[in-house]
């Protein structure tokens, strides 16, 4: 049995959650609403995050292109995804929403541009 102490981020109240994992059985204490329960379970069983960063863009009106993972990726992959993003170089023009890296680190999630950068 494992216990996790978390702060719920679903609303400004910030309930202090205690999530207990006992085999397949996950229980959440300290939440005041159902959203807190779902958050607690997700954070412990498969936490995920959106990663945002920038990549080098050649010939652009800006030196950097801002990007994000299109949806959340597993939290433990954050630094792997960052390493891929850091390696990436792209070329202007780029439109917001363009795919910059496909299926980053095998997550099934694309890294996409969040800015439109025209040619210089």
């Amino acid at each position, binding site marked *: 049995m494992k216990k996790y102490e*978390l*702060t*719920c*981020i679903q609303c*400004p*109240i*910030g309930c202090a959650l205690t999530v207990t994992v006992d085999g397949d059985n996950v229980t959440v204490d300290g939440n*005041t609403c159902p959203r807190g329960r779902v958050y607690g379970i997700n954070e412990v069983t498969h936490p995920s*995050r*959106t*990663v*945002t*960063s*920038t990549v*080098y863009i050649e010939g652009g009106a*800006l*030196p*950097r292109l*801002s990007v*994000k993972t299109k949806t959340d990726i597993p*939290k433990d992959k*954050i*630094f792997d995804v*960052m390493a891929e993003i850091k390696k990436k170089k792209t070329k202007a023009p780029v439109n*917001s929403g363009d795919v910059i890296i496909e299926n980053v680190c095998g997550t099934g999630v694309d890294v996409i541009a*969040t*800015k*439109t950068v025209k040619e210089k």
Partner: protein
Amino acid sequence: MKHYDIVIIGGGPAGLAAAVSAHEAGAKDILILERDERLGGILNQCIHNGFGLHTFKEELTGPEYAERYIKKVLEYGIPYKLKSIVADISDKREILYISAEEGAVTIEAGAIVLAMGCRERPRGALGIPGYRPAGIFTAGTAQRLMNIEGYLVGKKVFILGSGDIGLIMARRMTLEGAEVKCVAELMPYSGGLNRNIVQCLNDFNIPLKLSHTVTKIHGKERVTGITISKVDENRRPIPGTEEYYDCDTLLLSCGLLPENELSKSAGVALDRVTGGPVVDDKLQTSVPGIFACGNVLHVHDLVDYVSEEAERAGYQAYRYAAGETANGGETVKLTVGHGVRYTVPQSIDAGTMADSVIVRFRVADVYRDRSIAVYYDGKLIKRTKKRIMAPGEMEQISVRKDSFAEKTPDTITVCVED
């Protein structure tokens, strides 16, 4: 002198939303003056996500949020000038702007929307003792250098102030390979959102030290370290609690200040607490025809509220320029009671008000299980229970026109009660 019906000063989130709404209301002759090289303002450097949940019901990054509005500005063909900085505004709504392309140009506006945003409180204003080496940045400056220009300002970072920009930068610099040692916060509570504390600090095991402040900066050329101290309930450092941190960079996220130098030049009256103009329910300042919205009016936590407020300002500016507004003559003053620091607007014109007016405010402390109470001339009208209120999260009430049915009050008071 060239005339425009509406001139919007600032092409950030507030200015863009004001322009879009003025156009949608029917304004034909709008000009946006933007000092930077591009529209979008501070959102351009806020590459993290979390914007737009209220406005677009989805989670966007700053540039994506800005682009939604920029697209509309382009689609509507609203004229804008970049790298054009306003140097002066007169109370007659004459605007002097400077640009390399055009020189020094004076124009005249039927109505003005102030949307210049805010600036960060610098080290000097905080009075942190020590040397004045390189390596001290406000969080927003470091953010711009990183996300727009592509430079990492430091490798070993200490952050003073738990405002959202500081928290966001803690994560951002960590992701780029810097070691963020700690975030210290003077107050006994964080100024940032819970979500940011969890996802920017806890995710990366960055400690947050509440009731602590930096009491010395070390290093003559570049920061070599800082000393922090615990503070007492009066926010004074407690001798003997000093801790040294080895770092090459100090980031400051210690508050934002509405940037109202131009408002002052136009003779606009300012609120001592917000640092922004005093406005009525139309978001009109003390100078007729000059409106204000966004962080120049009062510092917001969520851009969604900036957009909403700016849309109102843009719409009202349109009505003013079109000669559609008249003074209703029944001014209701908004005042604050216990636990409330300010309200925006500061007054309502009962004669011309909309059916419902949103009044935004901030509380003075963290309150759990208290109520927001609203009084009309001392008579309790409404009491709303709140699980939690904090200075870092803006609160709001709405004042309905029909609530004045019996008698229009002279004063509405908002306060926190048990």
